[in-house]
């Protein structure tokens, strides 16, 4: 995206052409949440089954979950930022409901931003589990 576009009126802006990929951006935030969730679940399951035993400490598994969370939150943050930039393209506020390529572009950015927000919170929720629970029991 070109930042210099921000101050131009709509008719002089040109939104990037629609690509099939544009829709995928929506799924990045929740996709990262899903991968983070699965990794946490699998790590804890394998750790408790194969390493620490049912009465063992989570120990390094908690650290791993922390690491996943950090990476996931950065990923979601970047996706959200990208969404925000798209949403702020030119001069327009939601609901982004004009039949222009620009509003379509802004709408997808706005939805990406909102989904990233939800994914951020949901990822934190999951990560908090290892703050409160320390063993495999």
């Amino acid at each position: 995206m070109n930042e210099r576009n921000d101050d131009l009126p709509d008719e002089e802006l040109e939104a990037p052409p629609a690509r099939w990929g544009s829709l995928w951006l929506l799924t990045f935030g929740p996709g990262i949440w899903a991968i983070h969730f699965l990794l946490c679940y699998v790590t804890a399951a394998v750790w408790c089954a194969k390493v620490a035993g049912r009465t063992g400490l989570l120990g390094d598994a908690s650290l791993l979950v922390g690491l996943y969370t950090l990476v996931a939150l950065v990923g979601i943050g970047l996706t959200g930022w990208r969404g925000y930039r798209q949403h702020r393209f030119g001069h327009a506020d939601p609901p982004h409901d004009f039949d222009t390529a620009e509003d379509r572009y802004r709408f997808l950015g706005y939805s990406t931003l909102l989904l990233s927000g939800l994914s951020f919170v949901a990822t934190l929720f999951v990560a908090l589990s290892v703050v409160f629970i320390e063993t495999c029991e």
Partner: protein
Amino acid sequence: MTDSATEPFDPDDRERQKAQEQRLRKPWEVPRGWRYWSAVNNSDVGLWYTTVAFVFFLFAGVLALLMRTQLAVPENDFLSADTYNQAFTLHGSVMMFLFGVPIFEAFSILILPQLLGARDLPFPRLSAYGFWCFVIGGIFVCGSIFFGAAPQGGWFMYPPLTTSYSEGIGPDVWLLGLSFIEIASLAAAVELIVGVLKTRPPGMRINLIPLYAWYILVVAVMILFAFPPLIAGDLLFEMERAFDWPFFDHTRGGDPLLWQHLFWIFGHPEVYIIFLPAIALVAMIVPTAAQRPIVGYGWIVLAAVGTGFISFGLWVHHMFTTGMPGISLAFFSAASEAVAIPTGVQIFCFLATALAGRFVKSVPTLFVSGALAIFVLGGLTGVMVAVAPFDFQAHDTYFVVAHLHYVLIGGMLFPVAAGIYYFYPLTNGKQMSERSGKWAFWLMFVGFNVAFLPMHFTGLLGMPRRVYTYPAGMGLDLLNLVSTVGAFVFAAGVLILLFEVVRPKKNEPYSPRNPWSAGTLEWLAKMPDESWGVRSIPLIKSRYPLWDQPNLMADVDAGRFYLPDAEEGQRETLITSTIDGRPMQCLRVPGPTFQTLWAAIFTGGAFIFPVYHLYLPALVCAVLAGFAILGWLWTGTAMIPEKPQKDVGLGLTLPLYASGPKSVGWWAMFITMIGDMSAFASLVFGYFFFWTVHDDFLPGPAAGPGLLWPAIAAGLGLGAWALTLLARHCNRRDQVLGFYLSLALAALLTVACSVALFAGPHLSGLDPTTHVYPATVWVLVLWTLLHLGAALIMLLYCVARRAAGRMTAEYDIDMQNVGLYWHFMAITLVVTVAVIGGFPRVA
């Protein structure tokens, strides 16, 4: 809005329009007499589908009333324990599989094309096939109770109850009957995804699509990931029941918990698969009632997509009491709390819309208000049971019964009732009575709460669900009696609703057009409507075109938009681009046929005969189903048009044929294979689940299928894959010899690959009945072999198509789709080989 009748026309124009209408009417004509049942048009199939789903709903409702009668007083003997078990199992299974999910598919097939200003969905015959599978499977499953043969294990069929402690064929009826119906769901998912993405009217960019379409898109994608794990689970389960492969038998290394995982990976998203489309109806009704655009369109998209994702991280909250590590429970508890956020967001959006506009009171809005009230209560108890320690107490008690009914009846049945009242004029041009609607609502609303509110307390007092009776004097007597009374009041409301739907309305006047003054395209329909759907496909510039685009109705009626005519006498609709709704193709959709009915009957045979261990008739049916489907594909798909392109109106000329990623068939293949991959991933999950949970799962490399044969199979299979792609390349360049040679070689390599893959476990003497390890290896091999078999048929089909002149260098849909299939085939093969041959070496 202007009515077409008030538009001044010159006589020539009127004549031209009349001629157009006549030409348009011809191909869209509904078949008459007994041939009526060969119809595939969305308005007919959608109506049948909705009706049959309601019949199943009434059936399951009657079962519920029988159960409530039995529980009205303590120590009652109205139903025997056996019958009671069958009743609650079928009640749950039918409500979920034969009503909850199908009703949304049915509704969507009925109204989605209208909402999108399309003439039909892209694969009408697939919808018809799905419908017939649904009817046959549904009758089979429901009918079993009349022979005392219905399943008794509850709608989630937990082993070992259903393996070691169930006599008779009940579990097989459930497993095979419902697997068969899941085909219908997957077919609908393919249809609806492609429908939403590709059959929108020109100009309807992704930021303008009706919210209903957003929800349907999300839900259809969820089906692709949620139903296949259950199909995989059904496969393992039936292999255990029919052939003694011990997937869930702990004495031979199996684990009943795997079923619970696979079932709930399906089962929890399923709740949202049922809920989201119903809430989508609310998202259509509320703006109309408020006479203003929805508040927070983007937020609702967030809610739909967000719920779709997070609902896949909740499945273990049905398994909190199975003894999994606390940390695992915590992850799922956290996700279960998180899903309340998007769920709440959409409800706030609806409330905000209602408050911001002038909320017109009507029967649909009454049902919507009731739905929100009930659903919010169910959602709150949901947040309670998502907290693991609370769930430990409430698990398997009537508290959960109360919770799930509040969620499903509030989140689904009431919105559906609202939808029936709201959309009824679209089906026959008449409106339902306001008075009886109010009666129905109040009886249902009051009856529901009287029936289910006390169940929270019966549950907290300790009454377990699924018991056929209870002793007197435990404090449960009055609460149960009240619940029973409530259930009958509720049923009275449903009866009134039903009577109002079926009551003949011949003498009543037709409803005015757009009776609710709605803003979305489905209300372009004439009362009564023509079977072509929309007179001409409009150019869309707004989320609520009927409100914002002046003169739209008149222009549509006058045929001033796209495809106002059917010069060639064919059924046609527009295909547009995914994001911006640019017109890309004029798609010819097939007309009435009995082929899909035959295909469904034979597919049904292939699923139903094995219930009685009649494997030969099942095999014959499977082969016949294969031929029926091939015949259907041969005569009805990828037809070469008589000319490359046509004028679709407004000076636009579009191609009549597109292949590769531009064709809807390619998308259907892609979507189907995503679903296929998620079933395969579930089987692989099973392998690693056993490895994680049981230390003795892997018997050591020597006892496995070895690396040699699987590796040879992978080499041969990848060779076949490369040759298929080469054949596609040769076909495109019209290199006929190269095309035939590479396909013939690919076919040979496919056969050789299958033999080599089979040889691995066969030559190493793996017996699937001895232990879960050989069974798991065999099931992965069998899955891959089945896919190789399908791949071989596809290769030969392409040879035949080209030889018959039905596929050319330019018109190559078949070859493109087979090439796409082979990408997924290669992934399946490589993963199978890596898991069965490679993993034992690295583990």
